[in-house]
């Protein structure tokens, strides 16, 4: 079979390819913050190619933590603090107001914004950013991050990125599989690697600069680590049998992975610098899907050693594994939240595969989605949202659910291509 393999560096960008947003609010958002964003219009607005205010609004809505006042409900559209009539915004029930401008300045754009507390009648924060045309969207995400953090006390994750696998089957029946990266809202799509053979299991390094993935391009499962800025890549694992499920240690020096070279799938830890392997599990059952705890002391993984698929926990240096989940007959694909408080997983109930959330402090398992074929959960950098792959009869989409389960959204869907295995980047400074 022909092997098509193209490594594309960060100079090759697609823009505005997608973003088919549907947001489903599962119930009234208790505690959501009402906020108004006055359109960033001005006499020069036609020269600004991105609607900065709309991008900020979409980000804040997607988080599930805010309700946004529709523009047609506004009495006035102030652009400056001195033009604000606080009574009218109080009547409209708003806690906060964002006003701002986007102006063309030579080859660049100047974006100004102010976040205003309606009740206290004072400015919370004000910024001015000067950016190139290509960075206008990221300027809007930065503003959304600032607003989110000021209003909720938690760092925003709108400036992060997301990696995923797409598959397109052409007219001759050949499939083209790609590992792609986009902004967290699905824009600015970039292809990292393409192949006619499967690509699987993308995993972002903790510094956000590299991605590990599994490729079948050599008719054998091979794990590569690829530098995102240069496109250079290194083969780190190509043992006989399974080479799969890489997960970076929090210090970025090791990969937990699955190898079957000794007979059946076992968890190993690979030291990336010298290639040294440490075997972690030793059991005739299937052991797979390792995830590191943020303190790097523990690995959680899936095993069917007890008869059904459940999560187990083992010291990151090896030793005896202890069963972690007991509810139901299927819990798999664990992933730790960055704060270490939760594990997202795939749980099966009534034959449907759903995204579940294990609260480690309470030892409770909550179903967040309804299935039927939800998989590959990944936490956003601030652990507030879980992104996952959802299969339906018509489409494979990337979806997102807030960790309280109240806000659910399909945010990435293609007409022709299938999309799967989303993974959120860490916060990239």
């Amino acid at each position: 079979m022909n092997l098509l393999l193209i490594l594309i560096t960060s100079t090759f960008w697609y823009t505005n390819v997608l973003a088919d947003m549907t947001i489903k609010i599962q119930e009234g958002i208790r505690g959501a913050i009402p906020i108004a964003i006055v359109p960033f219009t001005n006499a020069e607005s036609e020269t600004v190619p991105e609607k900065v205010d709309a991008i900020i609004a979409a980000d804040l809505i997607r988080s599930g933590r805010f309700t946004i006042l529709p523009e047609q409900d506004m009495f006035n559209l102030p652009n400056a603090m001195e033009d604000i009539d606080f009574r009218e915004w109080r009547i409209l029930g708003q806690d906060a107001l964002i006003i701002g401008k986007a102006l063309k300045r030579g080859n660049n754009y100047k974006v100004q914004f102010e976040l205003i507390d309606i009740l206290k009648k004072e400015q919370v924060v004000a910024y001015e950013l000067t950016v190139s045309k290509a960075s206008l969207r990221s300027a809007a995400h930065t503003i959304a991050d600032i607003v989110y953090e000021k209003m909720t006390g938690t760092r925003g994750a709108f400036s992060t990125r997301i990696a995923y696998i797409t598959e397109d089957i052409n007219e001759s029946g050949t499939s083209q599989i790609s590992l792609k990266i986009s902004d967290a809202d699905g824009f600015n799509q970039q292809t990292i690697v393409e192949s006619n053979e499967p690509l699987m299991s993308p995993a972002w390094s903790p510094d956000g600069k590299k991605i590990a993935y599994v490729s079948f391009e050599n008719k054998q499962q091979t794990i590569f680590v690829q530098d995102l800025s240069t496109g250079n890549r290194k083969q780190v694992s190509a043992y006989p049998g399974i080479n799969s499920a890489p997960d970076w240690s929090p210090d970025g020096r090791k990969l937990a992975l699955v190898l079957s070279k000794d007979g059946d799938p076992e968890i190993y830890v690979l030291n990336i610098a010298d290639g040294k392997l440490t075997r972690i599990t030793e059991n005739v059952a299937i052991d797979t899907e390792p995830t590191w705890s943020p303190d790097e002391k523990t690995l959680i993984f899936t095993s069917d050693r007890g008869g059904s698929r459940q999560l187990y926990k083992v010291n990151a240096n090896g030793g005896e594994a202890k069963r972690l989940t007991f509810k139901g007959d299927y819990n798999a694909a664990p992933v730790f939240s960055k704060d270490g408080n939760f594990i997202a997983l795939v749980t099966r109930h009534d034959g449907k595969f759903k995204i579940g959330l294990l609260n480690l402090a309470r030892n409770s398992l909550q179903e967040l989605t309804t299935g039927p074929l939800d998989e590959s959960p990944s936490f956003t950098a601030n652990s507030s949202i879980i992104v996952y792959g959802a299969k339906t009869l018509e489409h494979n989409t990337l979806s997102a659910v807030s960790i309280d389960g109240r806000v659910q959204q399909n945010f990435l869907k293609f007409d022709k291509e299938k999309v799967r295995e989303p993974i959120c980047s860490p916060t990239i400074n």
Partner: protein
Amino acid sequence: MYIRFIALFTLITTTLLTGCAEYVVKDGEVEVAGGMPIGGRSKDAQAIATDRRGNLIIQPSSTGTSQSENLITTDPLTVKVILFDFDSSSIRPSSEAVLLAHSHHLTANSQTQVTLEGHADERGTREYNLALGEQRALAVKQFLMDHGVAETQLQTLSYGEERPANAGSNESAWELNRRVELAY
């Protein structure tokens, strides 16, 4: 398609095969009921069937009389897909006839290599399905080795759920996707 094909063989009785060389497999042993050893006929097309007791009958087609109108004489070597039950890597009894034919072919052609490609349906997580696909490929490998094929002739590769034979999301698609493909 393959399911129907395999099922048909189980309906054929030994009475259709009178006058031909027969190889009857009982408890994993091949009994030569007449004619040439299986290895010597390996390049010929072979008819294959099981009787009502589940015994396997392999009949070299070159003996002529096998081309009876009532006998289905599809070459089992053309069957290169072995199907599995949900979440299982156990070889179905109905698959053994086809795998025996492949083992005969491989033992007679010791230079021939085959890759056993293991697959799973889309239910369950991708990484686990990779492991399940490997278990299926290894089960076929073990069967072939138990019937005399050298390990050096056999490679395994699991595709998990990444390469479905049928892209549908329903029971009939899943049935076809839980498989091992013999890629010569």
